[in-house]
């Protein structure tokens, strides 16, 4: 038999061919790129990360100075990205739950209003909303010189909201230890109490005790003077406000835009998930004498979650990736910091590789977490 007619041989050839083609393309690109870079006198490699950054970042969740390294600046960008997407995901999910429930309301007016909300958010690009919110903030609030002094120590202007900040003056370590221990023991108590409730069928005071364990020790510590707090009150200077906690308009516009878009998606996902559970489940549970709210919590929601989790994962991945639109309104997220680094050092390939790698890594992390949760709520066939 001719070897060319052998299926396995042909499959082998196809695969070698495909790999060869990709490898050749990659090699050609690599060769041209290093040739071009050498001509432009740009050194390749990640050595530039250790260099001094030299640029200011307007919003830093971790300590950062322009004298820090570029690697540190990129880390600040990563933290900012995670901060805004995490907040948007949490707040957006809560808002979306409300809208989703309103969508299912038996009152046609409320259901239509919720539908209009969802449609208006879903049919207009997110970027347009970001620009709109940002320019509205700039337009509506007065310049910082005439900042509105809403409450003592609270200033509102078009460069953001400035609030008095609380910080721990002394005893931070012991407070952190006690809070961590409190959370751990509260979870333990909660689990034991749930186990006991399931085995004995009687309710107990587990939730109450868990709250006590969580709250009492830190309060006691504070009462006994083991920890003290200080206030950082903002001062109105001639040109700007100093001190306090500064919530910037870029952050607010981005957070607002992202959380609204999350809420629209979540509303639709929740509605579709709950409506997919047949009326028989409601009727059967009602026949057992369960109240509507308990039917929802004990019968419908556990089944609906299975349908809700996979699209919800997609929504969270989307909001995380959409936070990269920050660059359009000047919130210093990972992409914007990387862009600054790129313009300063000219290390385009390395910088883009870094931020794509970070996005890819975090996307995979989100997927894995949600898959783990999905496996937990999945149907357990007995």
């Amino acid at each position, binding site marked *: 038999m001719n070897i060319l007619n052998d299926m396995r041989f042909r*499959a082998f050839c*196809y*695969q*070698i061919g*495909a*790999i060869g083609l*990709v490898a050749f393309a990659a090699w050609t*690109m690599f060769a*041209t*790129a290093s*040739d*071009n*870079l050498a*001509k432009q006198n740009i050194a390749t490699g990640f050595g530039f990360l250790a260099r001094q950054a030299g640029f200011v970042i307007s919003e830093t969740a971790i300590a950062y100075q322009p004298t820090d390294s570029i690697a540190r600046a990129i880390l600040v960008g990563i933290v900012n990205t995670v901060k805004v997407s995490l907040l948007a995901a949490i707040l957006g999910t809560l808002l979306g739950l409300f809208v989703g429930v309103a969508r299912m*309301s*038996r*009152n*046609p*007016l*409320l259901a239509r*209003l919720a539908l209009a909300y969802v*449609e*208006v958010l*879903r*049919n*207009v*690009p*997110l*970027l*347009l909303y970001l*620009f*709109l919110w940002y*320019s*509205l903030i700039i*337009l509506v609030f007065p310049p910082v010189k005439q900042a509105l002094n809403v409450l003592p120590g609270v200033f509102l202007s078009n460069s953001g909201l400035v609030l008095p900040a609380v910080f721990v003056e002394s005893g931070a370590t012991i407070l952190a230890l006690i809070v961590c221990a409190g959370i751990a023991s509260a979870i333990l108590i909660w689990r034991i109490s749930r186990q006991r409730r399931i085995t004995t069928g009687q309710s107990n005071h587990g939730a109450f005790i868990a709250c006590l364990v969580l709250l009492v020790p830190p309060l006691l510590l504070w009462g006994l003077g083991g920890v003290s707090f200080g206030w950082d009150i903002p001062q109105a200077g001639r040109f700007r406000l100093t001190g306090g906690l500064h919530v910037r308009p870029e952050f607010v516009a981005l957070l607002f835009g992202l959380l609204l878009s999350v809420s629209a998606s979540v509303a639709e996902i929740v509605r579709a998930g709950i409506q997919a559970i047949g009326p028989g489940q409601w009727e059967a549970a009602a026949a057992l004498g369960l109240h509507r709210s308990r039917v929802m919590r004990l019968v419908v929601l556990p089944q609906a979650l299975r349908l809700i989790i996979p699209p919800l994962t997609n929504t969270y991945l989307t909001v995380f*990736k*959409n936070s*990269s*639109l920050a*660059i*359009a309104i000047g919130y210093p997220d990972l*992409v914007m910091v990387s*862009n600054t680094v*790129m313009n300063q050092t000219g290390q*385009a*390939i390395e910088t*883009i590789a870094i*931020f*794509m790698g970070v*996005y*890819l890594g975090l*996307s*995979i992390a989100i997927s894995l977490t949600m898959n783990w949760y999905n496996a937990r709520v999945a149907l357990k066939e007995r």
Partner: protein
Amino acid sequence: MAETQTLALPLGASKPPARRSGWFKAYFGTPLNSAISLASIAAIFLLGKLAFGWLAVNAVFSGDAATCKVSSGACWPFLAEKLRYMIFGFYPFEEQWRPLLALSLFLASCLVSMMPRFWNRALLYAWLLLVLPVLYILMAGGVFGLAPVPTSSWGGLPLSFMLSFIGLVCALPLGIGLALARASSLPAIRILSVGFIEIVRGVPLISILFMATVMLPLFMPEGVTIDKLLRAQVAIIIFAAAYIAEIVRGGLQDVPEGQFEAGYSLGLSYWQVMRKIVLPQALKKVIPPMVGLFIGFFQDTTLVTIVGLLDFLDTVRSALRDPEWQGIAVLEGYVFAAAVYFAFSALMGTYSRFLERHFRVTHG
């Protein structure tokens, strides 16, 4: 039926209680429901009053920037003055009938193509051989006495449509290929495809746009430059292909295994089975989600404004930044842009729902 009723009534059947009509019960059935209804009515009334006041009562219908500055309502003169710029961008002013004609031709062709009864081979050829070349000639010029217009002058709404439509059309075969590769039994090909799809789906579109605009020139041999518009278009095609591949994969998984086996047992080759048996079934199922995807891409093309292309959102924003109108017509500009995006997206959404119904009716 009428007979049984007359027989049954004298047997002591009580008259049914007087029922309130259906709509009344729906809105005011219980105290809670009444409260919700009243609150909703109040909200709708307030929003309506706000919108009406802004659009009509307090609006400025004639005048200039100075008149608008003192008014709290919408500024229609701004729209009237900037409309052509916002829609066509920096396209030469005297030549703007060309993008207008192109836009109308494009939308009319789309409208015809949206009707399932025209879905055949002739339509495909009409697009490839007639519509797209005519659109290109209209936009670029250079022949038939039309003045040439470089792509750097293209902008506004035609550009937005072009980026999303061409993106989808070119990404479709690529995405189908990727989906087939992902379902392939050859491990190396499957891994390459999975790697490509997951990497593209794991990063934001903006990073692929950056790659295409900043990185791609570094990979080109010296002296070769690719048009900026083309680079962004390539980025959108790559991005779209990965998402289309995932949708098509869903369609492929829906085709029963027996269809493949039946095809092979007839002696058809892999490509024949795919082309004649599997893909026609798979693709039909994924048309509605594909329309949904197109809505997303149409909105996502706004991101090209970040890498410096003059799409519709960008022309609107630069109209707002015009020194004469700066800070006066911000809301007007964005509301106009939002209305345009909303109209097209909502239309496509309705169409997607129509298709779903259509397929349920015609194909079980």
